[in-house]
């Protein structure tokens, strides 16, 4: 599903752990505004927290843009996390549960993908990384195997 238009809700910096808290707070409010249920909100905020932390820790800081999506009966939220860090040389490996180049658990990226409906990574070594996720209101979670 590719969405075409949307209203930009916010563009927030990700430069410190305080900013991470702001991002979570923003996503909580935006998700409530779009009409997500409690579980969906919690999943989306958690995914956002993981991706924002990656932007900060691995990408050296960056920003997140949130966009309200409204396509007739389908309402959703799109979040794009962008940094100008080192990029991800091997995306498949980075998405593997348990893979970390630092001291993490290696769950953030793969876990975030499981928590949302649409997930894409645009990265090139030396030029940065952009991770985009979309959640739609009232759409059941993806089947597990599709998320892999």
């Amino acid at each position, binding site marked *: 599903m590719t969405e075409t238009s949307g209203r930009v809700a916010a563009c927030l910096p990700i430069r410190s752990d305080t900013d991470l808290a702001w991002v979570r707070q923003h996503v909580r409010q935006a998700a409530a505004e779009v009409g997500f249920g*409690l*579980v969906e909100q919690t999943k989306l*905020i958690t995914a956002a927290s993981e991706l924002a932390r990656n932007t900060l820790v691995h990408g050296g800081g960056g920003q997140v843009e949130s966009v309200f999506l409204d396509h007739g009966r389908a309402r959703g939220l799109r979040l794009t996390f962008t940094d100008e860090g080192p990029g991800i040389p091997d995306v498949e490996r980075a998405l593997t549960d348990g893979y970390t180049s630092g001291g993490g658990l290696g769950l953030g990226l793969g876990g975030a993908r499981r928590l949302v409906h649409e997930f894409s990574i645009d990265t090139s070594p030396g030029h940065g990384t952009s991770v985009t996720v979309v959640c739609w209101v009232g759409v059941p979670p993806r089947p597990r195997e599709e998320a892999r």
Partner: protein
Amino acid sequence: MSWGLEGPVSTHVPVLRIGDVLLVTLQGELHDKAAEQLQQDIGEAVAGSSAGAVVIDVSGVEIVDSFLGRVFAEIAANAKLLAAETVVAGMRPAVAITLVELGLTLPGLRTALDVQEALRMLAQPSTPLSPGQGRQENA
């Protein structure tokens, strides 16, 4: 969109002593630094007392990501070195569901429905529980 003046509040986390148990109550947004501070505080509190258990009340916590999850796991691992058990109490169903999907299993952590149940569990021999056990959530 405007947020008003105050940002998400990072709370001071008190560690209470109830008999043999250290009770920590978490509320709202926990910044990464506050979580790391908490880990250190609990470590010191366990070391400086003869506490046999740590109960972390997370009923007021809306989000647990892999960072906070790892902090919980490390608190439990440290406490274990000092022969103290750790129980996470009152995790919201939405949070438990999300953690499972995230893939965070929190090994070494026992969970309880609430603080009361945690205290009851600690008075009995170990039976590990899984997060969200026995609970249902309407999505």
